């Protein structure tokens, strides 16, 4: 299954959008059903890991902490996602690897696999932030190719697509709010974070 789209943020410059989309906590907060996104090492356990529910994001967060936890190219992350699709609500234990982070052109790509009871998926996703031709804003282009198997896939695209679209739309409207909040703060902070990345 393929999903893609783009959206524009008239007032948020690409640099600031990049900082927000690089923050696993900010991404988690905008992704409905996502309990955490956290770096994964060999000892990681989905059973034992407890997410920090209250981690602050920009503008309140400590810029150094935001910079320290930003997505790193080549790093594998564990994510726990619970999604209600039709009559089932699987809890996907997902591992995502950041394949590419192009700081110059604001490109980030990732691959991932997830498994839940009776369902599994693998995906390749990417996004690129373009500066708007008029003004300071950004145009964010995104794409995902997913292979879904098992119980979720059995429901068919007429059930899956609306759910996927809803998650994506929620995500971008929420992240837009977060970006706007960041935009209202001193751009010195985001510049500092970018410098630290």
């Amino acid at each position, binding site marked *: 299954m393929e999903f893609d789209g783009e959206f524009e943020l008239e007032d948020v410059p690409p640099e600031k959008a990049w900082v927000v989309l690089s923050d696993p906590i900010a991404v988690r907060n905008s992704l409905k059903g996502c309990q955490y996104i956290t770096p994964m090492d060999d000892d990681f356990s989905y059973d034992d890991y407890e997410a920090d529910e209250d981690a602050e994001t920009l503008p309140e967060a400590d810029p150094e902490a935001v910079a320290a936890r930003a997505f790193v190219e080549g790093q594998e992350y564990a994510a726990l996602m619970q999604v209600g699709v039709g009559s089932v609500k699987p809890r996907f234990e997902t591992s995502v690897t950041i394949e590419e982070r192009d700081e110059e052109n604001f490109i980030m790509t990732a691959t991932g696999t997830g498994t839940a009871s009776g369902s599994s998926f693998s995906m390749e996703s990417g996004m690129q932030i373009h500066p708007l031709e008029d003004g300071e804003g950004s145009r964010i282009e995104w794409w995902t190719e997913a292979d879904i198997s098992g119980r979720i896939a*059995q429901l068919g695209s007429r059930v899956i697509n609306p759910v996927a679209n809803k998650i994506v739309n929620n995500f971008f409207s929420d992240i837009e709010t977060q970006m706007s909040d960041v935009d209202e703060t001193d751009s010195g902070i985001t510049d500092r974070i970018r410098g630290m990345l």
Partner: protein
Amino acid sequence: MSSDSERFAEAEDGGPQPEKHCGHGRGGMGEEVKRKEDQRFITGRGNYVDDIKKPGMLHCEIVRSPHAHARIENIDKSRALKVDGVVAVLTAEDLLEHDLATMPTLMDDTQDVLVNDKVKFQSQEVAAVIATDRYTAKDGAQKVVVDYDVLDPVIGADKALEDDAPVIRDDIEGKEDNHCLDWETGDEEATAKAFEEADVTVKEDMLYQRLHPAPIETCGAVGDYDPGKDKLTVHMTSQAPHIHRTLFAQVSGIPEHKIRIVSPDVGGGFGNKVPIYPGYVVAAAASYVLEEPVKWVEERSENIQSTGFARDYDMTGEIAATEDGEIQAVRTDVLADHGAFNAVAQPSKFPAGFFNIFTGSYDIDTAYGTLTAAYTNTAPGGVAYRCSFRVTEAVYLIERMVKVLADELDMDPAEVRRKNFIQPEQFPYESATGWNYDSGDYEKALDKALEMADYDHYREEQQRRIEEDADKLLGIGVSSFTEVVGAGPGQSCDIAGVEMFDSAEIRVHPTGNATVRVGVQTQGQGHETTFAQIVAEELGMDVDDITVEHGDTDTDPYGLGTYGSRSTPVAGAAAAVASRKVREKAKAIAANELEAAEEDIDWDRESGQFHVTGAPDRSISITEIAAGAYMNHPKSEEPGLEAINYYDPPEMTYPFGSYIVVVEVDRETGEVEFEKFVAVDDCGNRINPMIIEGQIHGGLAQGIGTAMLEHVTFDDNGNVTGGDFMNYLLPTSMEIPEFETGHTVTPSPHHPIGAKGVGESPTVGSPPAIVNAVVDAMSHGGISHVEMPMTPDTVWEKLDEAGLSMDPADNVSLEFDDQQSGGTADD
């Protein structure tokens, strides 16, 4: 006064007997006795597998593959074992230790109980979690981490046979393709010649789509190993407990006398509960290893996605005929999807089941059929869903093709049938493919159906609507099917090598009542009543004095189980023959009691009494004889009054019927409404007309589901997209019209009571009648076929293709009905 030979000829007498009025008020043959089993069913006291509770019982949940084709790289149990309440996690490796890793299918293929290496269909069994309760077992199953190397799936028999298709069965040595089997019947050369020389030939492609029997109770088992007795009891949803015991013994190495299979109340089988499934083996194995009872009950989607499907025959039919509609030859070619294993439930000598009965009710002396079956990455199956071994597909083929021929010749389809029927005097009739039909009077059944359906009226009405360009078209479909049921005989029919006989044992107790044990098992057919009626009839007992037991291999005589409408033809025959054995002994006891010579004792069917020849007053009842058997037995005889019979039928029986379906097809929406549904069945002599009627109703409902709603579908990745009741639609009472049923009676000449079996006639006979009706509504527009299930969009496309569809905009009415518009919401 009547005797046996007058009422029901014994097998050796031969020749069909006329219908007789039955009923002596004791609940024997022909009486509408209320079903004995309904007392417990309608008061909620049935005892199904999931009702069984045992002290210390554990619960099993099966981890299934989300992929259709994948190699298992690793299974990590550790997280599941940490879940509080999880007792064990079993994988193929554990089963290998106990030699239980694989099981034979009914066609002697080998299927992993739990996948050892490669997953071959979505929802295949990968691991089993055993826990203290069901919820915990489910939680544990979520924590079993399986690493898969996902492979390209093969979906569709046509794709499976392409040269570059991935090989599914690389576990079979030297296997380099997905070819499963070829089969052929009839005379190729003669058939080709007949087609070359014929005035008219017709050809049609048709798919009998993949169905699932979808019994309301899913499959389940409670394995209960008793280490004290070293005995394994398995309570399971089995249509064939004895053969399952034999298979369990073969698979496990546990001696057969140390295994007891109990099939308690079963909520529908329809062929789905004939095969052995991994869940049964896992529950039994887990109980054996853990020494505690273990219950496994599958969910609905597990049932549809992993247990035996039915049909999936992609067929081409051809008929060669004269200009005036005399059929000269029939030819067919089939591509069959067998799923990932060859697990079709067919007698081993008939790899395509009884598909070679595709000449149907017609006297066609030239026929040829071929079939190729392929492996695909779908669940294994090919079970006989409420039918005998592929006869459903055969009947669909010939009954559809006769309609195609009638349309080609512009003849009435009823007339084409009449012209080609095998005539009553031709029986016993040997078909072009070697089948020996016992008896039939096809025209009589058709005439009755035509009359009941008011056929001529609807033909006129159909024409009127065409001429008036009406919004709703009328279609009239006919199906004059012949069924073949009651397998054996044992020398040609077997399950896993065991001959298909059946059995009944009668024990008459000292106080004059009796216990009857039969080798078949019931899934709702009413055996406890039907068999009691046979014995009541044959012994002159009251039906209330007879209890029928079944489904327990420790107590019941060996039998091959209930499927293919074989219970009455085979076990029913055994019950009648055993009754007659009891009657023979009863005569000796009667002679002793009445102080007469044994040869001077007659039995009177009407009164049920034994009496001295020529002196009806010197009589004695079976109750008194029973007392005599235990309290004053003649010295020439052993004490007691019992008999057992293992019945190997000399031939199968051939029930038949004519169904007429009238439908309205909405030219705007493609919706199909049933206007009339007439079913005339002939199942030989009738035991309980009420049970027969119930069987017909149920089967017709399933036929409607087949024709209109049901299809197990897959996407290209092998995901089952028709694998639950949200997507696999069963008909409800809303979709079922009123049925008008009728019957004719043409007894089977070789069956002890002239009965033939009826359970599957309606499922077999009705789909072609329904499709023929829908096609008939559009045949004036050149439509020759509509694929099942005939959903509104499928039908609308055909309407559109024929130029018969109506644009909804043409038909919008802005006039309001006064009464309706004046109503309120409370109305």
